[in-house]
């Protein structure tokens, strides 16, 4: 069990540190680009083992989000988004299910399912996650233009960064 758990814990700690110590400081521009936020910690939630029960995954996601909120000084925003996307994760997985279906023992990585699967998984999962983050941040649908701009910019940047990081740090296949 601890053998199986160790990579997840290490990934969790590493990505949270990366998120709050480095990515939080990055501001891309003064103009409309300032809305762009790079989120890399959702990768932790994406890669949690499939055979864990939904309740455990949602709980882990909530705690992860709370830790991020602690450093971003936005109590509840990332926790709420993480909870939502963790709940939504099985739906995303079903949408992009490979022809042979999933085996609960398989790891949810690019090495297992290939590049195009990884790209669509990241894209859909992050879109849901970032949309909820921005809704909870803006907290009104009145300025829906700003909401869409924030979501779109952050989404594109985060997907690109996550896929790049995955390719650089796991150059297996």
């Amino acid at each position, binding site marked *: 069990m601890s053998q199986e758990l160790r990579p997840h814990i290490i990934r969790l700690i590493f990505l949270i540190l990366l998120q709050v110590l480095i990515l939080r400081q990055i501001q891309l521009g003064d103009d409309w680009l300032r809305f762009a936020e790079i989120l890399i910690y959702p990768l932790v939630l994406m890669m949690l083992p499939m055979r864990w*029960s939904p309740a455990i995954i949602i709980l882990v996601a909530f705690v992860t989000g709370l830790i991020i909120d602690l450093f971003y000084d936005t109590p*509840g*925003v990332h926790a*709420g988004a993480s909870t939502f996307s963790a709940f939504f994760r099985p739906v995303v997985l079903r949408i992009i299910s490979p022809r042979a279906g999933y085996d609960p023992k398989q790891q949810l990585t690019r090495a297992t399912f290939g590049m195009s699967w990884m790209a669509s998984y990241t894209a859909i999962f992050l879109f849901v996650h970032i949309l909820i983050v921005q809704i*909870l941040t803006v*907290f009104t649908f009145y300025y829906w233009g700003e909401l869409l701009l924030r979501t779109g910019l952050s989404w594109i940047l985060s997907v690109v960064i996550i896929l790049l990081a995955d390719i650089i740090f796991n150059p297996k296949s």
Partner: protein
Amino acid sequence: MINLLYFLSRYGGLLTFVLLELLSVYLVVRYNQTQRDIYLNSSRYYSGILLEKTTQLRHYASMAEVADSLSKENATLYNRLYSQLAITPRDAEVDSLLSPFEFIPARVIKNSINQPNNNLTLNKGELDGVQAGMGVVLSKGVLGIVRNTSPHFCRVLSLLNSQTFISAAIRRNNAFGVIHWDGLSPNVVVLEEIPKHLDIQVGDTVVTSGHSSVFPPGLEIGRVTNYYIPSGSNSFRIDVELFVDLSRINRAYIIRNRYWDELQSLETTESK
């Protein structure tokens, strides 16, 4: 406990999600200033709409009752007007001397009857000529005395307030005393200081005495329901049941004495 945990881990995905999501949104609203303001403003906006609609509905439901009481009041006013016209001499100057009181119609926008000291708010103020100390009456009864005013509103010391004392008399024999509220029942007030040698009967009508510049004489207040002489006292203690249920009023008349300023200045110079 183990079973509960098993149940949660097996089927609790949705439950966990709903609980934690609600907790998150609560955190967002509780600890983020911007989101908190938006939440409070929009909830106020929607609850405001709801409250306004229900108030409209309530007003609509009581419309028939309001119309009834208005027509009754109109009738009373017409009666008063014509009876006065009948006794008015032809000389116009004397006319204004005969009736120095002017009625300002007002709406009750806040009322209470269940406090030890009750107050009301009416929708007429300084701009309508209302001043502190003026009397407030109903079509059949006395409501109180104006305590202070703003440009558009005034606060009224209700008859149901321990600070209110109003000069009143028994209509049948003009025995006069002072009315105040003992704080017990919202439709019973107490008439005191009527000497014990006078004749009181249950059912006598109590009216304003006219011994002040605040109320015109003869306005009906209530009916005697009970009286006795407290031991060691020289005067009656009379329970007076009000004609009007003060919890159900929505219109009142503020009484302005045309010679208010003159009387005030006269009385203050005298007391110096």
